[in-house]
C-alpha cells in the first residue's frame, strides 16, 4: 500500500532548483546584514519566519508562538556574527527555535495550561487544534516535519533545504508520521 522506508531511501527526490537559489540568496543576505544592512535581515525574517513558526507550533502553546518567533529573530540578529557559514542560516535558526522551545518549558513548566490555550474560537479552528494536538503527541522526529508540511504548506524538498536535514530523512519522517497520524485520526477506517 505504502512505499517502504527502504524504497524511499533508495529513491531520493531530485533537488529542487529553487533550493540552491534560496541558499545563494541567504548567503548574500547574511553577508549584507553583517555589513550593516538591516533590511537584509527583514528579508531573512520573511524567508524563514514560517519555518520558525512551524517548529514552535509543533512544541509550544499556540498563544506563545508569535512572540517567540519575534524573540528568536531578534536573538538571531544579535548573534548573527557567530554564524560560521552563511549558507547554514536555516539549520542555525531552526536550532535556536528548538532550543528556545525547550527553554520555554523549563521556565514556565508550572504556569502554562496548554489545553486551555489550544482551544479555538470556531469549529474549524477547534478541529485544527485537535489535530495539532494529535501531531504533537507523535514522536519528535515526525511532528516537526508534519507541521511544516501540513500547516506551513512547505514541500518535502523545501523542508530539507531549510532545516538542513537530508531529503531522505524528511521523506521517511513524512511517510511514517503521516501513517501514525492517519491511525490516530481513524482515517484507516474511513472516518
Amino acid at each position, binding site marked *: 500500500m505504502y512505499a517502504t522506508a527502504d524504497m524511499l531511501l533508495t529513491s531520493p527526490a531530485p533537488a529542487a532548483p529553487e533550493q540552491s537559489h534560496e541558499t545563494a540568496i541567504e548567503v548574500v543576505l547574511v553577508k549584507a546584514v*553583517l555589513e550593516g544592512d538591516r533590511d537584509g535581515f*527583514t528579508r531573512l525574517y*520573511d524567508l524563514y*519566519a514560517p519555518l520558525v513558526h512551524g517548529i514552535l507550533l509543533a512544541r509550544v502553546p499556540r498563544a506563545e508562538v508569535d512572540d517567540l*518567533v519575534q524573540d528568536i529573530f*531578534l536573538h538571531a540578529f544579535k548573534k*548573527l556574527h557567530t554564524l560560521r557559514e552563511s549558507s547554514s542560516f536555516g539549520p542555525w535558526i531552526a536550532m535556536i527555535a528548538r532550543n528556545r522551545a525547550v527553554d520555554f518549558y523549563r521556565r514556565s513548566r508550572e504556569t502554562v495550561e496548554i489545553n486551555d490555550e489550544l482551544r479555538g474560537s470556531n469549529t474549524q479552528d477547534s478541529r*485544527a487544534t485537535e489535530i495539532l494536538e494529535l501531531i504533537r503527541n507523535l514522536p519528535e522526529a515526525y511532528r516537526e516535519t508534519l507541521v511544516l508540511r501540513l*500547516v506551513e504548506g512547505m514541500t518535502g524538498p523545501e523542508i530539507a533545504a531549510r532545516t538542513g536535514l537530508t531529503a531522505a530523512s524528511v521523506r521517511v519522517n513524512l511517510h511514517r508520521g*503521516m501513517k501514525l497520524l492517519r491511525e490516530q485520526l481513524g482515517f484507516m477506517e474511513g472516518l
Partner: protein
Amino acid sequence: MNDDYLWDKTGEPDPQVQELEEILGSLRYQPKPLQIPNELRLPQRRNYFPWVAIAAGVSLAILAGGIWLSTRSHGDAPQRQAEVTPPAPVKEVTPSAPKTPERKNESPEEVVAVHKHRPRASVPVLSKREREEALMAKEQVMLALRLTTEKLSLVHKKTQNTNPANQIKNQHRVG
C-alpha cells in the same frame, strides 16, 4: 498509493492529506513585520586574520633565525679548519739529528716550550669575538631546546591527565 503528493505536492492528490492541509491551514504563519529596536546594533564579525598573520610571521622569523644560527655554527667548523695557519716553523729536534754535545746545553724549559707551541691541525683557532658569538649561539640553541623540552613535558602531562576514564578504558582493552 504512492506519497508523491505528500512529498512535493506532485502526482495524484491524496484527499486525506488535502483535507488535513485545509483544516490545519488556519494555523499557518500570518506575516507580521519584525520590529528591530533602533538601539539594537549588530556586533561585527571579528576578524582575527591580521593577528594570526602577524603571529605566524614572528614564529617563522624566530624559527628561521634558529635554523640559521644552528647551520652557521655547524658550517663554520670546516671553514675554520681550512683557515688554520700552517704550523709555524719551530725549533724542533729531529730524531735523525745527531746528538751533539751542544744539545746538552739546551735548557729543559726551551724544549717544553717547543712542544707546547705545536698547533693541532684539527682544532680551530677562534678569535675572542668568534668565541663569544659561538657561545651566544650555543646558549640560544640550549634555550630553544629547554623550551621545547618544557613544552613537550607539558603536553605529556596534559595528555595523561585529560580523561582518566578513557585511560582506564584503554588499559582495560589492552589488558
